[in-house]
């Protein structure tokens, strides 16, 4: 691990002051950053510990939920309002990592975790445009069973590993940010970038920007929501494909729907094409399958991950059918 200095911030403004440079990193639970530092993929000269900031979950009068960026994953999944009003979020968090890691990891850190592409991690043995821009990508011609099928580029085929963020994308969450230029907010679905020719730039955050909170809108629809994660073993593995969905059906037709995919792209993938097709249409397995296929029409398989396209279509169909009480 490269030497670094450590300091702890008492509030967001102080944290931003302390960071001061792009060679600094904010530290939450450390479950990804410490690992990457040990592998020397990350080499910050300064860590600013923000894990003690923004630890509250606030239920507001307008029905929205304000989640501090320092809230632990386990605390968020256990929160009564999340379990009853946004079950997709609780289920997504509980499908991720292990209990030990969920007790450490923060909401802000979860959003900013790096890909688990093995070539990205292999600092000494592999080329990676995300780690060293312009170097090339060994995943594209390598073993790429876990890689992206949507929105990838010739520079990068990595996926975003978060489960929580997939649920947040489906729920239409907003991310609150404080930086040198003051406070602002962006839609969760606009926080992460597609790789393009700069896969090293993963979010729209500027150097020194700190995520302070994530806001969920009042969304009665979300009481009927769920998350399904398909992975190589029953527990404690990253997603091959995951689906976050909320669905309201009235008189056999889709009155409202939210759909997002994980494990398929460089960012949590909100399935807007499928949503548009589903709205107002019949709540049948056939219609769900057709919407899934439309969303995946642009999917591009690599050597080893073609199975993800059919897997995603089937998982979308199964999850929407489950929510509709229909037979898939």
């Amino acid at each position, binding site marked *: 691990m490269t030497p670094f200095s*450590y300091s702890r911030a008492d509030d967001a403004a102080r944290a931003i002051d302390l960071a001061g440079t792009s060679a600094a990193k904010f530290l939450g639970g450390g479950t990804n950053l410490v690992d990457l530092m*040990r592998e020397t993929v990350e080499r910050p000269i300064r860590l600013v510990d923000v894990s003690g900031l923004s630890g509250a979950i606030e239920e507001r009068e307008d029905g929205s939920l304000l989640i501090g960026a320092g809230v632990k994953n386990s605390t968020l999944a*256990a929160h009564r309002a999340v379990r009853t009003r946004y079950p997709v979020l609780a*289920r997504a968090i509980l*499908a991720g990592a292990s209990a030990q*890691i969920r007790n450490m990891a923060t909401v802000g850190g979860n959003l900013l975790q790096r890909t688990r592409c093995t070539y990205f991690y292999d600092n000494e043995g592999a080329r990676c445009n995300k780690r060293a821009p312009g170097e090339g990508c060994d995943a594209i011609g390598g073993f790429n069973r876990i890689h992206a099928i949507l929105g990838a580029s010739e520079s990068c085929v990595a996926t975003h590993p978060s489960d929580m963020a997939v649920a947040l994308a489906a729920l239409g969450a907003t991310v609150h940010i404080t930086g040198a230029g003051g406070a602002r907010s962006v839609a969760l679905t606009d926080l992460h970038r597609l790789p393009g020719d700069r896969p090293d730039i993963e979010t729209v955050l500027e150097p020194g920007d700190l995520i302070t909170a994530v806001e969920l809108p009042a969304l009665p629809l979300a009481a009927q929501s769920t998350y399904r994660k398909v992975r190589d073993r*029953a527990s404690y593995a990253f997603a091959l494909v995951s689906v976050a969905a909320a669905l309201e059906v009235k008189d056999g037709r889709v009155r409202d729907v939210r759909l997002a995919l994980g494990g398929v792209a460089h960012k949590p993938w909100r399935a807007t094409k499928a949503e548009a097709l589903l709205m107002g249409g019949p709540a049948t397995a056939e219609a769900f399958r057709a919407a899934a296929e439309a969303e995946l029409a642009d999917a591009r398989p690599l050597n080893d991950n073609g199975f993800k396209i059919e897997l995603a279509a089937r998982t979308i169909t199964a999850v929407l059918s489950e929510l509709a009480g229909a037979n898939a």
Partner: protein
Amino acid sequence: MPILVNGSAVSVPDDPRVSLLDLLREQLHLTGTKVGCNQGACGACTVLVDGERIVSCLALAVQYDGREITTVEGLSQGDALHPLQAAFVEHDGFQCGYCTPGQICSAIGMAGEIKRGIPSHVTEDIGAETIAVSRTEFQERMSGNLCRCGAHNGIIDAISEVYREDRDALERFAFIEEPAE
């Protein structure tokens, strides 16, 4: 502020690179806590922080000043094994024993999570106030602790027995707080 390890005050290391795991093993010589993968994937280094289980390999020790750490050494009373340690022996919950301290600390943390009503991936009714405990629940909740000897069935048997017959022995070390609202 010092770190409290099994009740003893310990200074925070000067070098922020020192993990909580390395502090325990290399500086305090509490070698019960094991180094497995050193990347958060195996659970061998699981300890309790204020009663909650974490993986100490991914924890920088400087982050834990003022906190109470319990390791496997803090569970027994003199030569008397903690009931869960005794149950691991009784049910063949190990072969080589390398993952055992992490398994035992993890199971204690798990008991606290169940007591607080925290659901898991396999909890059917995620809105329920109390958890319907089952073998499947234990298996899912212990999935962060790998056993390369394959003693998982014995491990779950041992945990199930103590959970059923001497739950206080588990919860005693998992400081119970009110569930977050």
